[in-house]
């Protein structure tokens, strides 16, 4: 959106924050519904198989869409001949790069969903067909002839940064280095954060440890592959059903790529089978729309698991150096980190978020971080839960752990001594507001897990982590129904039970039972724009919109009661789900319940509703501390997770079950990242483990129960004190487990995943070195 430079004297809001966005301590002390654990509204459908996910939709006359993908990691596409495929009986449309006009607003997204001059990674889409059946579509793909000119490729971040590396894009000139380079390279940008003087800080240190770390790329691993059904009418009126974290975003991008009005594209978010950031962008949706437009019939595309691994958006792999200095009594005098992330074939590796969050747990006088965003011949990365933070925090927390041992200090005490707290300057710039790191560390120290005894070959690790959280554009509608029930429409797809939280918050505000409220995720034509379900924003932002919409409805209900009683609206208050005269002077009337007011709404002025549209500010940061016990088999290098405890500041847990669920899920994903998950590339630049068999996500028998402690340091920017909880949980595990494994194995592990061959080699190498 362009800003108008002539409008410098635009009105200034009187108040910094509107009343509802301030924490209401009084209300929080007497919650009736918030903090309870009712069954979720979509639960019944999900345990019986009725819930409809992306691939479960069928439209009449629907065709099967399949995508042809590049077998080469880097190649010029000299020509595409689809004439034979088009001639095949049953084929209704073929699309290639020629079917998408150049698009400046979404150039990289366009290039990623359908390769243009070059195929930039194995699995890059190069053509797509729509046919009457899957076998016909498969046959058609084989008939498309592509003439490739194969180029050298690079998949490793450090190799991609070397001057001799094959260059992916001629127009990438590294930003943020002085003097500016004259030649293109794979380094998109360098950026720097921090404050103070690290050289002076290191000079004060008694002990300094500097280490290099590497982490492999991982995938979000949602169980539901991307799927959509697109239906474009001859007049451009279009509908799209898809599994996404942000159907409004999908609509904006698809409308732009297809060149149609936003109003003509109605996107419905299906139930979504996991996302974790991976479903915040588009892959198959514009292709399905283009096929449907060409074929004049609905087209369904569902990715295979192989396609999900090769052609959706995994997270970055990293290569990092971290140096930290500490005094003998445990004061960190300086921290430095360099973080090199590759994010696939296009700009956007979350290196800057990594650099910003690396030292966020510490209040430091001297800190500097540098970030490099690098492109390689891998699929374009997407967000993955606290994007960029788990890796950099792994590096920092590993060195902090080693320093604690070096100076003989308890690792929690070392963290407490340097912990970020309210008023402290963050390593990424601004000062922290209210935050709960110290509380999580103290809870960790007091937890029985921390003092439990360990067996042979076992080691305990702890680590802390952080995520920013944010709000964003949000709106929601709330309707009071004639029978006294309430319907809420939100625009943020529900990934982990947020509809239950919305119902809880509305029930709390309205003073009615939880089961009288139903929340749905509305399609893009029913609500104003909503930012995507990401950044741990939904319970915070949509929740606040629901609270405000509820308050608006309450105001209207008080007005209706006032009319019936013939007293001024100001003389009516809302209490326990009823309108009541505000005091003896207001008159003596029996309270009118929500149901009673709703029943006569048609006669007192029409339907009663509330709505709220805003840009949610005031999100609160979330800190967490994890404790893990690991056991290492010294003969095979195999690591078992024996015990795990997550302690995190939630601000306020609206539905504690789902807060715990976020903690547990984040920890489990972190365990996978730490131990076995990785994108494995061959020398040929091809992904070798594009399936669940060899990608090795944790299975039920790999994990213990995951204990949780919900710390509640209220966020002053939310009426109930809510902070986001979704992302922080994946930040500490990599480091906590690495610290535990290093303790158990007796050797510092500096590369993830800590797969058995790597651990065994480290143990054996250490033995040789010791001899």
């Amino acid at each position, binding site marked *: 959106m362009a800003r108008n430079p002539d409008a410098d004297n635009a009105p200034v809001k009187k108040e910094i924050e509107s009343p509802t966005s301030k924490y209401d301590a009084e209300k929080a002390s007497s919650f009736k519904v918030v903090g309870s654990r009712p069954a979720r509204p979509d639960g019944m459908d999900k345990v019986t198989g009725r819930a409809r996910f992306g691939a479960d939709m069928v439209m009449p006359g629907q065709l099967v869409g399949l995508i042809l993908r590049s077998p080469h990691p880097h190649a010029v596409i000299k020509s595409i001949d689809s004439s034979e495929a088009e001639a095949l009986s049953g084929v209704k449309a073929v699309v290639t790069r020629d079917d998408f006009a150049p698009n400046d607003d979404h150039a990289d997204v366009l290039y990623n969903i359908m390769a243009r001059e070059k195929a930039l990674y194995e699995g890059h889409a190069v053509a797509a067909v729509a046919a009457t059946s899957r076998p016909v579509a*498969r046959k058609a793909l084989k008939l498309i002839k592509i003439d490739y000119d194969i180029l050298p490729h690079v998949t490793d971040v450090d190799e991609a940064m070397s001057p001799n590396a094959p260059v992916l894009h001629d127009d990438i000139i590294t930003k943020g280095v002085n003097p500016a380079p004259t030649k293109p390279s794979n380094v998109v940008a360098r950026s720097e954060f921090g404050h103070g003087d690290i050289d002076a800080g290191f000079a004060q240190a008694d002990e300094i440890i500097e280490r290099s770390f590497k982490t492999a790329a991982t995938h979000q691993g949602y169980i539901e592959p991307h799927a959509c059904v697109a239906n474009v009418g001859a007049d451009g009126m279009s509908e799209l059903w898809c599994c996404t974290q942000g159907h409004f975003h999908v609509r904006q991008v698809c409308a732009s790529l297809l060149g149609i009005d936003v109003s003509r594209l109605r996107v419905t978010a299906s139930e979504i089978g996991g996302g974790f950031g991976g479903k915040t962008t588009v892959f198959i949706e514009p292709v399905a729309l283009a096929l449907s437009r060409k074929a004049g019939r609905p087209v369904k595309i569902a990715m295979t698991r*192989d396609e999900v691994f090769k052609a959706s958006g995994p997270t970055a792999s990293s290569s990092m150096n971290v140096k930290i200095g500490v005094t003998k009594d445990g004061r960190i005098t300086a921290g430095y980190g360099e973080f090199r992330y590759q994010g696939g074939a296009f700009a956007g590796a979350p290196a800057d978020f990594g650099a910003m969050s690396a030292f966020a747990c510490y209040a430091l006088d001297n800190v500097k971080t540098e970030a490099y965003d690098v492109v390689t011949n891998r699929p374009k990365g997407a967000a993955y839960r606290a994007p960029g933070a788990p890796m950099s925090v792994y590096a920092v927390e590993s060195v902090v752990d080693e320093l604690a041992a070096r100076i003989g200090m308890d690792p929690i005490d070392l963290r407490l001594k340097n912990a970020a707290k309210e008023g402290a300057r963050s390593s990424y710039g601004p000062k922290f507001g209210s935050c709960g790191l110290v509380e999580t560390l103290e809870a960790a120290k007091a937890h029985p897990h921390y003092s439990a005894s360990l067996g042979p070959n076992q080691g305990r690790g702890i680590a802390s982590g952080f995520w920013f959280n944010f709000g964003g554009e949000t709106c929601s509608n709330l309707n009071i129904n004639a029978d006294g029930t309430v319907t809420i429409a939100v625009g943020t797809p529900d990934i982990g039970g947020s509809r239950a939280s919305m119902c809880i918050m509305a029930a709390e505000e309205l003073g009615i039972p939880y089961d009288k409220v139903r929340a749905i995720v509305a399609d893009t034509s029913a609500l104003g724009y909503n930012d995507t379900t990401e950044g741990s924003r939904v319970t915070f932002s949509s929740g606040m919109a629901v609270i405000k919409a509820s308050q608006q409805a309450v105001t209207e209900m008080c007005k209706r009661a006032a009319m019936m009683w013939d007293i001024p609206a100001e003389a009516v208050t809302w209490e326990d789900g009823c309108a009541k005269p505000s005091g003896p002077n207001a008159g003596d009337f029996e309270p009118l319940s929500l149901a009673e007011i709703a029943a006569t709404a048609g006669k007192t002025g029409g339907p009663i509703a509330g709505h709220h549209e805003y840009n949610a500010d005031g999100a609160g940061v979330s800190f967490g501390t994890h404790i893990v016990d690991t056991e290492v088999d010294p*003969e*095979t*290098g*195999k690591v078992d997770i024996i015990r795990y405890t997550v302690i995190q500041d939630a601000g306020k847990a609206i539905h504690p079950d789902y807060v715990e669920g976020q903690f547990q899920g984040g920890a489990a994903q972190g365990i996978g990242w730490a*131990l*076995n998950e990785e994108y*494995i590339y061959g020398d040929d630049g091809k992904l*070798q*483990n594009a399936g*669940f*068999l*060899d990608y*090795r996500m*944790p*299975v039920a*028998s*790999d994990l213990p129960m995951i204990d949780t402690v919900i710390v509640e340091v209220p966020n002053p920017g939310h009426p109930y004190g809510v902070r986001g909880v979704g992302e922080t949980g994946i930040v500490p595990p990599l480091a906590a487990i690495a610290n535990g494994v290093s303790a158990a194995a007796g050797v510092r592990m500096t590369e993830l995943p800590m*797969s*058995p*061959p790597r651990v*065994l*080699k480290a143990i*054996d190498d250490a033995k040789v070195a010791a001899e």
Partner: protein
Amino acid sequence: MRYESPQTVEAAAALLAGEEGLARVLAGGTDLLVQMRSGMVEPDLIVDVKNIPSMTSIVEENGGYRIGAAVPSAEMNEHKGLCALWPGVMEGADLIGSTQVQGRATMIGNLCNCGPAADSVPGMVAANAIATIVGPNGRRDVPVIDIPVAPGKSTLTKGELVESVFLPARPKRAGDAYLRFIPRTEMDIAVVGVGVSLELDGDGVCTHARVGLGAVAIKVLLVEDAAKALIGTKVDDAALEKVAAATSAACKPIDDKRGTIEFRTKVAGVLATRAAKIALERANARASNGGEK
């Protein structure tokens, strides 16, 4: 693509022999369907053998058991007699995939797919299991070790299929065990797999031993030097050290996404030792039970 579901093994062999294109036997289907879905194979004929009685039953024979080639692993592992007599073979079969996969996957499918990492094969090799093959020229019995040649390649000739596998009777003091190494606890393909079968005399001296080794060569191996290291000993630490060395020495692995040469070689020895100890315990336990199944 044609699908046939014959009632006799002879009819199945005739179908396989008569197909000019690519014919595949469908037992559990847990490999075949995945290969078909990914486009790796496109058979012209699929012969489903699950309606052939001799291929879907477990029959006691001379104190041992004959297991039909289409009997799923889950069914074998519910068979008390089999589990008591050859627990190592059964645990190998029990490690193929998930509970769901267990409901379909067969030991003979695992064998005939000829993957070097097939979990059920080292145990069968250690047990010296004998496969009965039916083909255009009738029946023949072949030791399991002689069936795989290389990944996807066996000694079966056109028109032949394995009808059953025979696990023989055992003396009183005998035991077997299978251990594999995987990075997770379940659901992985073996990085190394070792099956050990032992027989002991009344004094606890090993009189007979066989060691099968998987995932470290082009096919599953029989490690005779490891067996020699056990025979004539009381399976003591000194013997186990030699077993480890012999097993590691037999490895001819590759570096791949599942493990390195160095790792596989070392862990093969570790697992051989551990499996031998379990086999020893089982032999002694069985003897003290009076050799009860």
